[in-house]
């Protein structure tokens, strides 16, 4: 009979972690739907970027207020979770505060957690005010209606509840209060409960303990459905972030091959294709759906925190155009989720659903509004590259569909015919010298 709580605890733990693992597997499968690209270079620089940008939050503080608040919540979140380790060991062994034998170190740790819990509470309230009362512009765009808006708030409520549970748990724990070490904050909460009988206090303490750990397990499983995946994915994402100069766009290899063939006078265009080449599927240029993007693009989409820093720096968006780099990322994730569900429903095979990223999610108008200025890439605190997706979709529009705006087609015809985007003769290129 006395083992019942431990058994229940083990079941909750296994269920929570099990469901989480299942979703992580799905996440990895979905990301792998993207095309492979080689990002195995420069590992030392990549580790450095990850530790600076994800762990050190170096890009967050570019906007000091949000940046510092975010660091408080982030540190609070990470450090307070050390406590979860104790809860898990206690839960499985039936012990109570197993680490308390550490004495003063324990007091120091719990004291730190309590202070952080209060700081997190205050910060979360400020965050809530920024989203709901001050109404910062970047949280109000059209792509932030509905679920993305609720998602942003739900996580804040989660934090409030978890922090309150943690503090109440400590305040109603008579043994812990009796130790009088580490109860920096909870000693002031304890008197609120002081006229309750000991058995009631114990009940409250047990209830908050259970709700706290169950809440954490629910939180863990909420991540997959939320922009809060970034607390995990920011790490791989900053690791795999772009290392070359921002202005450098990769050269499509498939095109290079064809161009070489066209330019090489020694290759007979009518010769039989080399062994094995004839049944190769002709390469599709650019991207019209998530499977055409690289897996790093897809990892980017899952990592996006929907903070809107990119969109608020975007010249097109600032001047009222439809383009929003944040929406590009959110659309990519939504479509990827849709494709993932399709695969789940069809025994692991994707069945054509008559939809794609281009057109059904992202319109041509958005794509053509981009100036390729890289402001979004610069602004992103977790090294996401929305511009790369935009460019791949433009490639599809131009090379597969010849769907560029007329003026751009004229410009390209000029380049093709006279080596300049305007209709001037290449032979006149040096005329300026004598004008």
């Amino acid at each position: 009979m006395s083992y019942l709580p431990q058994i229940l605890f083990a079941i909750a733990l296994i269920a929570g972690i099990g469901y989480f693992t299942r979703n992580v597997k799905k996440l990895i499968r979905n990301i792998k739907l993207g095309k492979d690209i080689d990002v195995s270079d420069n590992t030392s620089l990549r580790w450095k970027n990850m530790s600076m940008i994800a762990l050190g939050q170096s890009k967050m503080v570019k906007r000091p207020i949000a940046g510092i608040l975010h660091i408080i919540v982030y540190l609070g979140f990470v450090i307070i979770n050390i406590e979860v380790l104790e809860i898990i060991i206690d839960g499985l062994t039936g012990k109570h505060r197993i680490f308390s034998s550490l004495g003063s170190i324990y007091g120091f740790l719990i004291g730190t957690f309590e202070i952080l819990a209060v700081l997190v509470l205050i910060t979360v309230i400020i965050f809530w005010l920024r989203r709901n009362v001050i109404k910062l512009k970047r949280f109000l765009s059209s792509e932030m209606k509905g679920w993305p808006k609720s998602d942003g708030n739900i996580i804040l409520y989660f934090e409030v509840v978890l922090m309150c549970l943690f503090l109440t748990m400590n305040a109603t724990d008579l043994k812990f209060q009796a130790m009088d070490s580490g109860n920096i904050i909870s000693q002031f909460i304890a008197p609120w409960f002081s006229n309750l009988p000991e058995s009631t206090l114990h009940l409250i303490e047990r209830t908050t303990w259970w709700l706290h750990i169950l809440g954490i397990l629910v939180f863990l499983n909420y991540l997959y459905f939320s922009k809060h995946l970034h607390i995990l994915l920011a790490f791989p994402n900053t690791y795999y972030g772009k290392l070359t100069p921002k202005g450098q766009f990769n050269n499509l290899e498939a095109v290079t091959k064809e161009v070489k063939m066209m330019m090489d006078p020694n290759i007979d265009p009518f010769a039989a294709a080399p062994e094995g080449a004839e049944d190769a599927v002709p390469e599709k240029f650019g991207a019209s759906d998530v499977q055409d993007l690289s897996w790093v693009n897809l990892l980017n989409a899952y990592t996006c925190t929907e903070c809107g820093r990119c969109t608020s720096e975007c010249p097109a968006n600032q001047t009222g155009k439809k383009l929003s780099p944040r929406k590009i990322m959110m659309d990519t994730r939504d479509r990827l989720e849709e494709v993932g569900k399709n695969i789940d429903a069809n025994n692991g095979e994707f069945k054509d659903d008559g939809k794609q990223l281009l057109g059904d999610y992202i319109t041509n108008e958005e794509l053509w509004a981009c100036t390729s200025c890289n402001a979004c890439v610069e602004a992103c605190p977790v090294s996401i590259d929305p511009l790369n997706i935009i460019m791949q979709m433009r490639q599809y529009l131009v090379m597969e569909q010849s769907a560029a705006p007329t003026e751009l087609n004229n410009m390209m015809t000029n380049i093709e015919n006279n080596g300049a985007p305007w209709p001037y003769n290449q032979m006149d290129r040096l005329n300026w010298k004598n004008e």
Partner: protein
Amino acid sequence: MSEQLNVPTMAEYMTQGKQPEVLFWVGCAGSFDDRAKKITKAFVRLLNKANVEFAVLGTEESCTGDPAKRSGNEFLFQMQAVTNIEVLNAYEIKTIVTACPHCFNTIKNEYPGLGGNYNVMHHTQFLKNLLNDGRLTVEGGQFKGKRITFHDPCYLGRANDVYEAPRDLIRKLDAELVEMKSCKSRGLCCGAGGAQMFKEPEKGNKDVNVERTEQALETKPEIIAAGCPFCNTMMTDGVKAKERESDIEVMDIAELIANAQDL
């Protein structure tokens, strides 16, 4: 008006069996656009003055392919790139300077993967080197104490992290360099990049160049300095749209330096 500019071509160097110290990549805007041609000539005057042995490709130069690539036409880009690289490699070019950040970015970053490896400099970097080496001197002259704000071209700044060379040159003029509230890595685009220069903008409530010009006007400048022929056009149009062309000039850094020298 015909002035004496010394602009040798690579072909001429070749017939003399000589190699210039640097190739000046003029670019399409610099070759054909009336406003940009003035920048080209100002830069050439500085090169002449500093006795730099440079050459241009002249009629052998062709578009780098940047606007095609940014439009999504990778084929056309690579055709242009491969053609240009063939010419550059045949002349055994090692060092290239250009006054266009788009050419600069493309040749520096995207040509190496297609077989074109050169040391590529933006003209502001090149001019700074000339000054540092004492080959060119500059005195404040007519720009002394003038309020000048610098608009960062996206393809020079964010794209390639070159922020200081143009600013150092402005400081050399004894001018008062005033920064816009979004500058350097947070500089707002002029609206021309990504081939926008060649098309009408999408529907919105303002043109990007007007927005950027307003930011520049907030600094109460006498001169808006640019380092890109396309930014120059966009900002000039912006200043016109704000009806300030009578008291504010948009000038390239090369023009500032050349004018300070009375060239």
